[in-house]
């Protein structure tokens, strides 16, 4: 995959994705340590006198021939409902006029007291939300995405409006690509202008996306935070290589929310969150544990998030934050954008489906906020969330007919 990263249409997804690969191997080391630990335990058990032998089930004796049942043997079914000591914090994004901002709508994410959509235990307190990506300059996009936004490329305000009005975005992420010293090196003042235009065009909560340069991002974020004090923008993102103290302070002082980003390692996530706790209340932190595309490390992303959520519910406060996913990274997979042999076409369907499958996999791991790209993918994920939130029930009589349905 590394070989693929510079593909023309693909630059975008991978730019967001660039930190991930470095740490894939690290995660493996962690897994391996776990294994070693078990062997270590074993050595302790082997010390003389401590060989405690757990009970072993007796061998099964062949049962006497029984009469076959003539009617259904009724058994009880008890739903396996658990309670957990931990709870994910609730984070409010965006602020209305009365709350000190200018947004017409706000969203609340998090608050779970049960694994993702274990609604037999407890309902999901807040539906996961979707933020659509908007870029502050023309960027290479996959063909399947570009066809939907070609009229608004280079005009972030118009793009944001289209995303909210037509594509149903709950939030907008304005990616300030142009501030990158290696791209246009746009000034913090220019970035503020862009944010201003987007904030005027739409009234949903905003996510402010940086360029990945730790110094430049901090400077731009500070300018944006100060100019838009009280808006509860989500600042995407605060990373370990930034001046965490400085960033946390200007986020807190100006009433925003920090997105704590770490590259697929729960210990690093805990560590960064701990550093933020010195300056920010828990309710002002969302975490991004890194999203890898379907086929390109999604298994790591999925398991990392699933573990984080289970740990949070089991009482680990350092992971008890709502989770955000850069689901747009799905487009980094060559199978999402590339023209392939006829049997795999059309890519106009394959591409957005790649984004859907990446999103839904992570929805089931516990993601609360998706940053997405393709309108069809957004619609599908919203539909699925609505179905999972709703109290609708399956029609059993009707379902039986699948066996004989003529397609």
């Amino acid at each position, binding site marked *: 995959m590394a070989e693929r990263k510079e593909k023309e249409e693909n630059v975008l997804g991978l730019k967001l994705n660039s930190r991930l690969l470095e740490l894939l*191997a690290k995660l493996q080391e962690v897994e391996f340590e776990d294994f070693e630990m078990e062997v270590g335990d074993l050595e302790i058990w082997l010390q003389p006198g401590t060989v405690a032998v757990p009970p072993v089930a007796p061998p099964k004796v062949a049962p006497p021939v029984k009469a076959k049942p003539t009617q259904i043997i009724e058994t009880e079914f008890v739903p396996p409902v658990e309670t957990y000591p931990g709870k994910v914090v609730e984070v409010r994004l965006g602020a209305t006029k009365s709350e000190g901002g200018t947004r017409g709508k706000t969203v609340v994410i998090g608050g779970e007291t049960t694994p993702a959509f274990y609604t037999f235990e407890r309902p999901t307190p807040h539906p996961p939300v979707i933020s659509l990506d908007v870029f502050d300059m023309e960027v290479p996009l996959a063909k399947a995405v570009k066809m939907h936004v070609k009229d608004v490329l280079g005009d972030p305000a118009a793009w944001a409006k289209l995303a909210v009005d037509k594509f149903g975005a709950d939030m907008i992420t304005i990616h300030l690509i142009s501030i990158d010293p290696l791209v246009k090196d746009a000034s913090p003042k220019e970035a503020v202008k862009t944010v201003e235009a987007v904030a005027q065009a739409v009234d949903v909560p905003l996510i402010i996306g940086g360029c990945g340069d730790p110094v430049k991002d901090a400077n731009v974020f500070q300018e944006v935070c100060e100019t838009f004090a009280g808006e509860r923008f989500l600042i995407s993102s605060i990373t370990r290589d930034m001046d965490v103290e400085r960033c946390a302070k200007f986020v807190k002082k100006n009433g925003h929310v920090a997105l704590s980003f770490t590259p697929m390692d729960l210990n690093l996530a805990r560590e960064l969150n701990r550093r933020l706790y010195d300056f920010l209340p828990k309710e002002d932190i969302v975490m991004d544990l890194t999203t890898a595309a379907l086929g390109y490390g999604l298994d790591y992303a999925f398991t990392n998030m699933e573990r984080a959520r289970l740990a949070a519910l089991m009482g680990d406060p350092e992971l008890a934050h709502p989770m955000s996913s850069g689901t747009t990274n799905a487009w980094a997979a060559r199978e999402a954008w590339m023209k392939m042999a006829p049997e795999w076409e059309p890519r106009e369907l394959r591409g957005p489906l790649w984004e859907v499958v990446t999103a839904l996999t992570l929805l089931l791991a516990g993601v609360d906020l998706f940053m997405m790209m393709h309108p069809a993918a957004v619609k599908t994920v919203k539909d699925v969330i609505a179905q999972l*939130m709703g109290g*609708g029930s399956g*029609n059993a009589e009707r379902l039986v007919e699948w066996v004989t349905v003529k397609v």
Partner: protein
Amino acid sequence: MEVERLMSEREAKGKIGVKELSPIDVYKLLPRTNCKECGEENCMAFATKVVNREVPIEKCRPILKKEFEKAYKQLKEILKPAIKEVVVGTGEWAVKIGGKLVMYRHELTYFNPTAIAIDVTDEMPEEEILSRIKRVEGFRYEYIGQILKLDMVAVRSTSNDPDKFKATVRKVAENTKLPMILCSLNPTVLEAGLMAAPKARPLLYAATKDNWREMAELALMYGCPLTVFAPNNLKLLKSLAKTLIEYGVEDLVLDPGTFPGEGLADTLNNFTMIRRLACKHGDELLGFPLMGVPMTVWLDSAGIAQEIVKWREAYLAAMLIVRFADILIMHSLDGWVLLPNVILRANIYTDPRKPVAVEPGLKVFGVPDENSPVMFTTNFALTYYTVASDIESAKINAYLIVVDTEGIAVDSAVAGRKLTAEKVAEALKASGVENKVKHRKLIIPGKAARLSGEIEELTGWQVIVGPRDSSEIPKFLQEKWQTSHS
């Protein structure tokens, strides 16, 4: 680890779960002679591997002897997975489903990837049946060194006519060795189908509250696994499972119903509750493979564009793969529907304990000679297989040196000093390729360009910086290699 331990304590409810099984439990039942017949240094090392499911207990030859019969039985019992492994079909084409030891993949790993069956019906024209079978058999996609495939054919009776069903099952059995699922809720129809393939051990679909006795008789008579179908009624599902087990049917598959749309929450809840009860509470009546049926989306497909129905089937399948399904029945055969699902399946069933790396060393492509190009890449599996597949599909004769970067991709390895000029020089030397080619030119990945000077210094070879994306290798070689060698 702490968290999982807590979780299992909370949820184990008295039964020895997988996490609690320690190598010592296995060790004390082994012969303990350290005979090394299994290939391990001693019985303790073997026991550790057995507990981690890296080797089957049968690799211990002595344990199979008469004198250890009792211990062997005990071992089988304590090593029994929470989800029974059920075999569909026979011989080398048979497919194993279930056999899961854990609820979450990070607790160990998932075994037996979700089997995907594609349907045909007894009212489809013969050409359509044959062409669908051919496409099922012919489906293949190469992904990190694995060939991703489809697994089974589900034959549905839409006619409810025993003769038609029998003829169709015969037709399918004659044309493929893939295991079958025979689908009809009418036992007479199902039996007619079984008569056409009496030794094939298909999965029967399905026993319901109305037909369970006849279905149980068929399962016993033909030695087949049997699906239990009780849509959205887990009490009934469990009662039927108990009844069928008492009846003597040992291999069950559970279908709690796959409801698209409105009932999606029910579907996920039912799958999750069943799997939790089996894995965490030791409920043996629910410890069977779970069937998901994404093709239920076709029930309400009248008047809707086919692409939309296929799209729904695709993402429903994906959610079921993530949420515990061991077998799926699908209708869509389109590559764009199936590809994300077979890749998702490969991802979810990847062993999280194993690093995604390949063996370093020299790989030979085609029939290279003394003028063939020499390239290198890293041993990160995804990188290696992508490069390898690009070289193979262009039918290039070449040498590829796989440098040990500890399973890290090129750019990250360069940044993290896992890929250095020293390592490249070492690998080049160790490969012995200098005795195989006359030239001294090394093509390096575009993303390792900054190492080129150092590599030249250390090796004395001329470095040619290759493309940043391996899909460009064929074009690159055509332009740069052939000209430099003509």
